C-alpha cells in the first residue's frame, strides 16, 4: 500500500482510528463521515502542535524539537490537561523500563560498587599479562637451551664421558 499520498491528505490510518474509537466509546455507532472528520481533525491537531513546538524550538535556537518543546506547545495552545496526563504516562513508562534494565543486570545484584569491579578487572588483566610474559620467557629460555645444545653437538665439543657418537 505504498501509494504516494499528497501531503495535505496525510492522516492517521483508518484502522488505528477505528481501534481507538472502539476503545473509547465501545457502545457508540460512529458515522463514516464523522470518522473521516476526526481523522482530519487529528492531522490538524498534529500540525498545530508541530508548528507551535517548532516556534518554541527556534526561539531556543535548537535544531531538534524535544519533549520540552512539545509540552510547552501544549500549554500555549490551551491543552494543559493533555500535558499533565502525557507527562504522568511518560514517567510511568520510564520507571518501568528502568526497573527492567536493573533487573537484567546480574552485576548489580552482587552489591559490588562499580569502582571496585573496575579495579578487580584491571588486576585480572595485569595478572594475565604477567602470566603471558612468564610463559613467553620460559619458551624463549627453552629454545635458547636447545639451540645451545645443538650448537655444541655440531662443534664436536664432546665431554669425554659421552657415549654418543662413534668416536672411540
Amino acid at each position: 500500500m505504498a501509494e504516494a499520498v499528497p501531503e495535505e491528505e496525510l492522516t492517521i490510518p483508518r484502522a488505528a482510528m477505528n481501534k481507538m474509537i472502539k476503545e473509547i466509546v465501545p457502545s457508540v455507532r460512529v458515522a463514516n463521515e464523522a470518522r473521516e472528520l476526526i481523522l482530519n481533525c487529528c492531522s490538524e491537531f498534529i500540525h498545530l502542535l508541530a508548528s507551535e513546538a517548532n516556534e518554541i524550538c527556534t526561539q531556543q535556537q535548537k535544531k531538534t524539537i524535544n519533549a520540552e518543546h512539545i509540552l510547552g506547545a501544549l500549554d500555549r495552545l490551551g491543552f494543559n490537561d493533555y500535558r499533565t496526563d502525557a507527562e504522568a504516562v511518560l514517567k510511568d513508562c520510564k520507571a518501568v523500563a528502568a526497573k527492567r534494565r536493573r533487573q537484567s543486570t546480574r552485576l548489580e545484584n552482587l552489591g559490588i560498587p562499580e569502582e571496585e569491579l573496575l579495579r578487580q578487572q584491571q588486576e585480572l588483566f595485569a595478572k594475565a599479562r604477567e602470566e603471558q610474559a612468564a610463559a613467553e620467557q620460559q619458551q624463549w629460555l627453552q629454545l635458547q637451551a636447545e639451540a645451545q645444545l645443538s650448537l655444541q653437538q655440531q662443534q664436536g665439543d664432546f665431554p669425554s664421558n659421552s657415549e654418543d657418537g662413534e668416536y672411540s
Partner: protein
Amino acid sequence: MSSFKPKLGDGSIILPQARVKMIMKSSPDTESISTDALYFVTKATEFFVEHLAQEIYESTNKSNELTYKGLADIVQKSDSMQFLKDMVPKKITYKEYQEILKEKGNGDLF
C-alpha cells in the same frame, strides 16, 4: 475543559508514531524531532481524540451515534477546539446559504 481523565493513560500507544512523524514533517520548517517529543505528540493526539469522542458522547445526551453534526457543535462550543472551526463548519441548507449571500452582497464572494 471539563475534568478529563484519559482512559488510554497506560503508556501504550495505538496511533502509529511513524505516521504521526510524517504528518509533522509535512508542516513547514519541521526538521528533526526527538523520540520523546514524537511520543508526546502521539500520546497528545490520542488524548485529543478521546476528549473529542467523550465530549460528543456527553453532549448528544448519550445517544448512540457520533455524527458530523455532533462534532460540529462541539467544535463551535469549546475554546480549545477553535482551531478546528474551519474544518467543521456547521452544515446549512441551501436556503440559509442564499440568505447569507443576500446579506453579504454578491460582490464579496467573487
